[in-house]
């Protein structure tokens, strides 16, 4: 494993800027002017300490000044209203945003924006991108919402200046800056062994503030149909976060957070005695005949090509189908902002993440990885009247090293420890410039930017962007975003665990994946009705695909044809009475790609439409909401290329070509007993809809080899939670 690296000349630029900007800050800082009373009809020109707090609407004047231009924002209370405990929970039932479960046994999950593959969504902490496909694979579940002020979503490649890899968009977790002494304790329990305890402590000091938060969360593995095989992966999760906020250090306002994440999860066999599961290597603890289209016998299944039972019967023990993943992660993010004078501001940011995974993928492979990521960013914003120019540089370092042992007997490296099958090191310094200006008496806002990155493997890549925001009236605005992005292909979780058993992974033909994105939205915001309609077009070229060649080597190569996703969505909320609000959110998609790439395009298995409905009743101490999403059918035969690669249920019958339509409905209620005590409860998946009750949750190929099936529906049934939250301020 290569662990050392050299810093290219370009990478030194942000550091030089950092020191230069600090020097500048020390010499040109000016104290705020005193306040004066305004004249009638003239707004006060001099501002006292002013907060821009809570959720900032994406159509707010000045929204395009940011490095990352948000299109949606979810407040802490929005999250609490739906009982969200993780980032994944917070993003459900929202048009244009979805959560895709990629594996029925290990429950890899990703955030899809505009129904593009999850790996094209970039996650940032306070604007600092220190996540990767490896860390996101299981890490998304581990991102708690405790201690967050809000989550900003930016759909489209054109929305981010500092994260060019966000081909589908960016999700930003914004850390809450304490403004008052606070102590919060929350405890929840539910069925399926669910329990969660959290705390959040904040202390405001003369020089700033500190915060500490922690979460302990457990969930049992769940089998809804009697296989003895989990549909929903069990986990034991511990999170600890420390925030440090300094009001004035050399004129900088500093925001720092450190997080420690520790999670053990296991799918396949039920239970959390992972040692015992791994030690069980013979026998059949499962019931292969359970559920729809199950095998006629419990200890083996029907081979489709012969119609006979597969012989010998399953004898792999509990470990044969287990997927057990232990994760440890430390991450550190800091940002520093300084208003040098009326026209000049400086922004500095740094992030570091250390991520370790130890995992056992049944009869596939054992895998251990260690990933490090470093991010540095520095920019200067200079105003010229209403115009603002931002010039900056950043440096991104990403390293993955691994050990793996193939557990697939028919592979050449079966049982042999190998190093760095999927490793890579990316060093990517970049420079960027952004112009913001307003026209027509501030009615038109423009944000035009370009960045140039240089990667050690893929060379120089230039990506321009343009954002326009037109305020037709106080209530109506239009946004247009056109932009490009690029993403460096990594390797492991993006496509297939199977590469760990391959003879080799050939990356020589890989290219950066690129996107061209255009989106338009029309936003209406009045007192009682708000609505946003969006049209999005995304074209992905050189999409990275794995092809398993004749020599059992995995070749990472670009798709031969572009992949195109078009979407239209609407979200409207009407406050019908002082206490009652209704939300409607339909979304429609169309996917275009060439059939020759289709067999590798399962990533694009998405429904062609969804409709979300919501009702909120908020009155006195009560907050109640119910939200549902109706998901349209998916053409599974098209996505998986069933015609050429048929797959079957365990009784030997073909899998259906179309997934059925279904509803998922969740509800949550809270009651504020007094100023410090809140009680809450929730029911998720009220109708108890489960994919496993309609479709065999595993599949087999024509020769009787089983694998995890494509997840098109809920993988856990009706669940109940109830809890208490105590707040002292």
């Amino acid at each position: 494993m290569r662990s050392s690296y050299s810093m290219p000349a370009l990478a030194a630029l942000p550091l030089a800027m950092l020191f230069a900007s600090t020097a500048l800050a020390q010499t040109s800082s000016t104290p705020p002017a005193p306040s004066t009373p305004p004249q009638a009809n003239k707004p006060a020109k001099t501002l006292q300490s002013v907060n821009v707090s809570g959720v900032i609407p994406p159509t707010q004047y000045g929204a395009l000044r940011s490095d990352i231009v948000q299109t949606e924002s979810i407040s802490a209370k929005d999250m609490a209203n739906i009982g969200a405990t993780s980032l994944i929970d917070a993003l459900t039932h929202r048009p244009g945003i979805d959560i895709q479960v990629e594996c029925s046994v290990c429950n890899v999950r990703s955030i899809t924006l505009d129904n593009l593959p999850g790996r094209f969504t970039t996650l940032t902490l306070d604007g600092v991108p220190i996540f990767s496909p490896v860390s996101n694979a299981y890490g998304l579940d581990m991102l708690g919402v405790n201690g967050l002020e809000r989550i900003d979503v930016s759909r489209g490649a054109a929305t981010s200046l500092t994260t060019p890899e966000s081909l589908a968009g960016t999700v930003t977790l914004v850390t809450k800056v304490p403004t008052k002494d606070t102590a919060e304790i929350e405890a929840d329990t539910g069925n399926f062994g669910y329990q969660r305890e959290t705390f959040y402590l904040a202390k405001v000091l003369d020089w700033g503030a500190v915060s500490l938060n922690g979460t302990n969360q457990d969930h049992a593995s769940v089998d809804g149909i009697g296989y003895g095989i989990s549909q929903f992966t069990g986990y034991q999760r511990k999170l600890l976060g420390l925030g440090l906020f300094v009001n004035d250090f050399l004129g900088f306002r500093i925001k720092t957070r450190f997080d420690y994440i520790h999670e053990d999860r296991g799918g396949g066999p039920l239970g959390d005695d992972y040692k015992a599961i791994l030690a069980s290597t013979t026998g059949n603890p499962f019931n292969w005949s359970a559920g729809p289209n199950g095998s006629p016998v419990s200890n083996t299944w029907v081979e489709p090509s012969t119609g006979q039972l597969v012989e010998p019967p399953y004898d792999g023990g509990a470990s044969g189908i287990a997927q057990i993943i232990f994760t440890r992660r430390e991450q550190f993010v800091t940002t520093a902002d300084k208003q040098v004078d009326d026209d000049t501001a400086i922004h500095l940011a740094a992030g570091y993440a250390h991520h370790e995974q130890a995992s056992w993928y049944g009869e596939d492979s054992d895998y251990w990885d260690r990933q490090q990521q470093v991010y540095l960013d520095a920019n200067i914003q200079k105003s010229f009247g209403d115009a603002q120019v931002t010039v900056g540089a950043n440096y991104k370092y990403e390293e993955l090293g691994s050990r793996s042992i193939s557990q697939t007997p028919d592979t050449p490296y079966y049982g042999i420890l190998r190093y760095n099958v999927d490793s890579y090191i990316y060093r990517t310094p970049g420079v960027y410039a952004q112009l913001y200006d307003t026209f027509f008496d501030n009615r038109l806002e423009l944000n035009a930017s370009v960045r140039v990155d240089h990667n050690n493997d893929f060379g120089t890549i230039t990506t321009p962007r343009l954002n326009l925001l037109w305020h037709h009236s106080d209530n109506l605005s239009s946004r247009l975003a056109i932009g490009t992005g690029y993403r460096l292909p990594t390797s492991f979780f993006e496509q297939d665990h199977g590469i760990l058993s391959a003879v080799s992974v050939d990356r020589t033909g890989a290219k950066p994946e690129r996107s061209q994105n255009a989106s338009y939205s029309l936003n209406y915001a009045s007192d009682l009705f708000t609505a946003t309609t969006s049209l999005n077009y995304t074209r992905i070229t050189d999409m990275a695909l794995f092809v398993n060649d004749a020599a059992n080597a995995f070749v990472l190569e670009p798709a031969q044809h572009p992949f195109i996703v078009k979407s239209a969505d609407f979200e409207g909320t009407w406050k019908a009475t002082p206490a009652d609000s209704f939300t409607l959110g339909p979304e429609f998609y169309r996917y275009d790609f060439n059939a020759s790439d289709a067999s590798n395009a399962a990533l694009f298995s998405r429904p062609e439409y969804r409709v979300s409905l919501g009702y909120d009743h908020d009155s006195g101490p009560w907050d109640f909401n119910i939200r549902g999403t109706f998901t349209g059918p998916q053409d599974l035969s098209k996505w998986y290329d069933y015609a050429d690669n048929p797959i079957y249920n365990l009784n030997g019958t073909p899998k259906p070509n179309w997934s059925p339509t279904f509803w998922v409905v969740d509800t949550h209620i809270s009651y504020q007993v007094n100023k410090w005590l809140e009680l809450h409860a929730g029911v998720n998946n009220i109708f108890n809809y489960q994919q496993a009750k309609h479709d065999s949750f595993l599949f087999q190929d024509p020769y009787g080899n089983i694998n995890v099936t494509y997840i098109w529906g809920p993988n856990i049934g009706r669940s109940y939670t109830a809890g208490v939250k105590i707040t002292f301020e």
Partner: protein
Amino acid sequence: MHRRLRITDWILLTMLALALGFAPSRALAAERLEFTLATLDGHAFVKLSDFPNRQVLINVWGTECPPCVKETPLLNAQSQIYKNVQFLGIGTDDRISSLLFANRYRVRYPQLQAPNNPAGLLRELGDLHGALPFTVVLDAQHRICARRMGEVDARWIATAVHDCTAETEADGSRGPS
């Protein structure tokens, strides 16, 4: 497939028509303001027109905003001094947090919920950047005649109310009751 394309085209055409069809924004402070917002307890709607021929002071605030917290006792006291001015608060945070805040400070004037997307209302009030606290004083015709971004003090309120009263009288309108 063809039908879906047509639906998308219709949506696009409709949006473009809407976008092109709307006139530019009216000038701020030139027209009578009107809004309808729910009270923090969720029990009633309050319209600005519920206070006809009466000056109104509107204070937009957030619980996590220190200057908002600091100015709340002052606004509370001033609301009892200027009996001829209707004070209204608009909380921008979640309803329960805002309600607890208002109860904690025993605020004695009506407190309202900001709209789901407050951008439109804030622009109407003249708070283009969404900065808090933000205070406006309306004359008896409910036209903005003074506004302030940042914490208010008694002097500013006195000046703003006085100037708004004078403006109303200069317009020949009925003065504050």
